[in-house]
């Protein structure tokens, strides 16, 4: 406490001394305090539009003050001011350290704030006036730079995304090419995927045992890609169960997923010529929350004694709870997910696992349809391109040739 008092006293004393000094040395009082040399202001200030935004940002660039890093060498920072009129009130919008020669002025998007005009707002097509000054290391300021004016524009193309656009176009081109090639009757080979090969056998087993099959589409949303891949496998499973007259249970945790799963199973039964076998009650909504859903599915496994369990889609922490409960009942379990964190548990606790990309490839593999196999081939070609580029880049770069490295860097 005492120490604080002493410090406070010291601070107060030094502050009053400073104040006094400031009073004495203020203009008008011709005292002989040595005039400190002021830094020169930055020059050639230019206001341009940020080409990749929706009209709320400008870019301020300038030439460094001649005292920045040279001359008096006393510039510490630059201060940037903006106003909507040349003689209006200028708002300090940014500070940049010495040696820097541009500033991105990101305005706010709300015209008004709490019913009053928002001073930080920047809108498209409005003239904004800027001026700048340099701040010296001792806290003095240069003159203001000349007043300049500029506008922000609402832009229609993001120049920084051209690379991604090219990548999308190339990849889409590959996909479409291989689909048409396959349609023309070109044979496409797909390597065996153990998890998918086991589907038929596991359904046969459930039929022999006279027990139902469980299909869990995960705890993602209905439109997630892994869930959509799950529907394809569900369609296949449902078609087979219709043939074998085995019951398939599909508990879901999302109403949209419920609708899709019902449609999928219904269509599969119709395709198998057994629409009479379809029972909507077997595809049911439990609850949207993760753990209540898991509790109910675990209970279902034990009470219905499901012989084969499928887990296809997005899974979170529940993956291991489901897989271990399934192991207790002695069910054959086939899983597939693109969630990296859950793959280890599926691999350890289920019999077969579709790892990441294998899940997406499963739809093509299952149907053997040219339309669905084409994209798989395109994926592989994209991989070849990547492998080659990456290999070349790393090797050549290590020997000092940076061409491929910079090529990849610009692409990504």
């Amino acid at each position: 406490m005492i120490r604080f008092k002493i410090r406070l006293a010291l601070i107060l004393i030094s502050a009053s001394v400073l104040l006094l000094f400031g009073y004495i040395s203020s203009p008008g009082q011709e005292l002989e305090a040595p005039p400190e040399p002021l830094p020169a202001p930055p020059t050639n200030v230019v206001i341009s539009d940020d080409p990749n935004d929706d009209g709320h940002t400008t870019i301020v660039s300038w030439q460094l003050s001649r005292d920045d890093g040279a001359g008096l060498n006393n510039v510490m920072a630059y201060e940037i001011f903006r106003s909507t009129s040349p003689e209006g009130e200028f708002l300090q919008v940014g500070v940049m350290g010495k040696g820097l020669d541009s500033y991105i002025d990101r305005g706010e998007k709300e015209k008004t704030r709490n019913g009053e005009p928002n001073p930080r707002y920047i809108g498209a097509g409005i003239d904004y006036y800027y001026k700048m000054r340099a701040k010296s290391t001792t806290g003095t300021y240069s003159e203001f730079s000349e007043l300049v004016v500029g506008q922000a524009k609402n832009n229609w193309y993001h120049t920084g995304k051209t690379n991604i656009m090219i990548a999308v176009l190339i990849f889409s081109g590959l996909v479409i090419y291989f689909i048409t090639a396959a349609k023309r009757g070109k044979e496409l080979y797909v390597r065996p995927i153990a998890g998918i090969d086991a589907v038929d056998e596991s359904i046969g087993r459930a039929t022999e045992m006279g027990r139902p099959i469980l299909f869990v589409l995960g705890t993602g949303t209905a439109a997630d890609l892994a869930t959509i891949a799950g529907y394809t496998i569900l369609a296949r499973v449902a078609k087979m169960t219709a043939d074998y007259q085995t019951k398939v249970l599909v508990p879901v945790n999302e109403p949209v997923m419920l609708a899709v799963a019902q449609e999928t199973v219904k269509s599969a039964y119709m395709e198998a010529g057994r629409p009479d076998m379809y029972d909507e009650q077997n595809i049911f909504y439990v609850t949207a929350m993760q753990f209540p859903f898991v509790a109910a599915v675990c209970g279902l496994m034990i009470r219905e004694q499901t012989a084969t369990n499928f887990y296809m889609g997005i899974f979170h922490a529940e993956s291991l709870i489901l897989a271990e409960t399934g192991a207790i009942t002695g069910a054959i379990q086939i899983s597939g997910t693109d969630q990296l964190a859950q793959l280890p548990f599926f691999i350890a606790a289920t019999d077969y696992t579709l790892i990441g990309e294998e899940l997406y490839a499963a739809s093509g593999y299952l149907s053997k349809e040219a339309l669905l196999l084409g994209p798989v081939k395109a994926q592989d070609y994209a991989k070849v391109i990547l492998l080659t580029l990456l290999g070349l880049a790393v090797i050549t770069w290590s020997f000092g040739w940076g061409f491929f490295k910079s090529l990849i860097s610009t692409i990504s």
Partner: protein
Amino acid sequence: MRRQIPLYIVLVCGIVFVIQFFIPSHESEFIFEYGQDWVMVIGILALPLGIWSYLRKTWLTAVKKPKERFFAGVSLFGFAIMMLTGLKRESLMAGSLYMELFEYVLIPIQATIFSLLAFYIASAAYRAFRARSVIATMLLGTAFIVMLRLIPLGPISDVNQALVGWILSVPNMAAKRGLLIGIGLGAIATCIKIILGIERTYLGRD
């Protein structure tokens, strides 16, 4: 025709949302923000469908299976209580019966089910981690080394610590990248298949 319209909707929506990514203008921002918001709103509007499925199934169970009647009743009772207490906006404030039920019924069960993982991770490790093949040995070996880091073993611990650090930052990183690149390619191909209407299982058929 009925089957064609949804495919066109997918095509148009898909392409619009891909294109908006390349357009920074505020019209594009508008589409981006609203599109996401709308998907969420539709998801909530669809909830009655799920609730209907749940109620019907539980009710039918209660009617058809006398043995299950008690449990179906418990479920419906819980549902009714929570619905009634959640009818008012104020119920979402702390201290309401609705939030109390959340706190003292949902949370303990949720946390306990989550904690079952401590048991299951042990039984899964015991069952799966057998050196049956090279692949299984890799899995088992790494898991073993990583688990050892928590067990005090004198000087071995220091070496192990360093080894775990290396495994996590080198091979672990490499495999994750390979996986993510693969998943990325597969996901993009799937997206293109969906947008072009090649992948359409999810729409069912008439």
